[in-house]
């Protein structure tokens, strides 16, 4: 659904693999056995290994970074719940639904130059989710980004 004044964000697709989970464990240093030890994970209520929540969140962040570039790095915000695990073999789709545009609540005030900067800023809000191939929502929440409009 389009919302006036809020840019559309292209969705992003990724496939979860055990090899990818291993690579993420190496990159993040998170070797929790639920992610990397298949024998251990089989004996848990999950019945097998699951992807790191932060790996799935990385797909949502990448989707927003691809859409907003530097503005995302300097003024992005994510708030999510991890609702269900992503498993090896899952085909994930990350999506952002435009919600509204607003002025920033408050940025550090100051001299004239900073006030003009504030006037050029807008906050775009989105509902975000990451679903698997069955349409199950694994992660859901909101994303916001402060965008500085060029003159």
């Amino acid at each position, binding site marked *: 659904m389009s919302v006036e004044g809020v840019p559309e964000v292209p969705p992003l697709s990724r496939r979860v693999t055990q090899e990818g989970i291993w*690579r993420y464990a190496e990159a993040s240093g998170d070797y929790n056995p639920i992610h990397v030890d298949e024998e251990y994970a089989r004996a848990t209520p999950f019945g097998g290994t699951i992807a790191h929540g932060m790996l799935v969140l990385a797909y949502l962040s990448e989707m927003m970074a691809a859409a907003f570039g530097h503005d995302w790095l300097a003024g992005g915000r994510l708030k999510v719940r991890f609702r269900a695990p992503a498993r090896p073999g899952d085909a994930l789709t990350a999506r952002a639904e435009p919600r509204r545009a607003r002025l920033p609540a408050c940025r550090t005030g100051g001299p004239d130059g900073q006030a003009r900067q504030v006037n050029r800023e807008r906050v775009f809000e989105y509902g975000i989710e990451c679903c698997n191939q069955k349409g199950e929502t694994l992660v859901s929440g909101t994303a916001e980004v402060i965008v500085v409009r060029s003159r």
Partner: protein
Amino acid sequence: MTPANLPNIADLPRGHEIPAAHFRLGADDVRCYLEAVEDHSNAYGQGPEGPAYVPPLAVAALALRAILEQVALPAGALHAGQEVEFRRPVPVGASLRSRARVAQRSEMRGAVVSVIEFEVGEDGSATPAVVGRATVVAPRGEAPS
């Protein structure tokens, strides 16, 4: 695996400060992270050895790693929620300092819900570049994994 002599996250009271940690994300670390998350976007600028800036969620992931090096998660603990706010781009190679504390702790049906607040900033900077809150649900009374 987390050493068993670390404090169990479920036992930490509200207000508990997790000792500060220092780390650095160099060009190789960023390349490794981007390959792991299959991020081929050009969103992070161009530096001499690759991206100019660290993917902001990599900074948050490293802050969580720093927490997990000082706190034990019991078997069955779940990462239930995450908030993260990117306030300033972090240049590749910057020396970073992270701080964390238990912001909330509650008990519900035999589980402990802990909210860990963290912030990461460049060494020497008074203001953080990335702040976040991780919600962890852990069974009460289990031995650390």
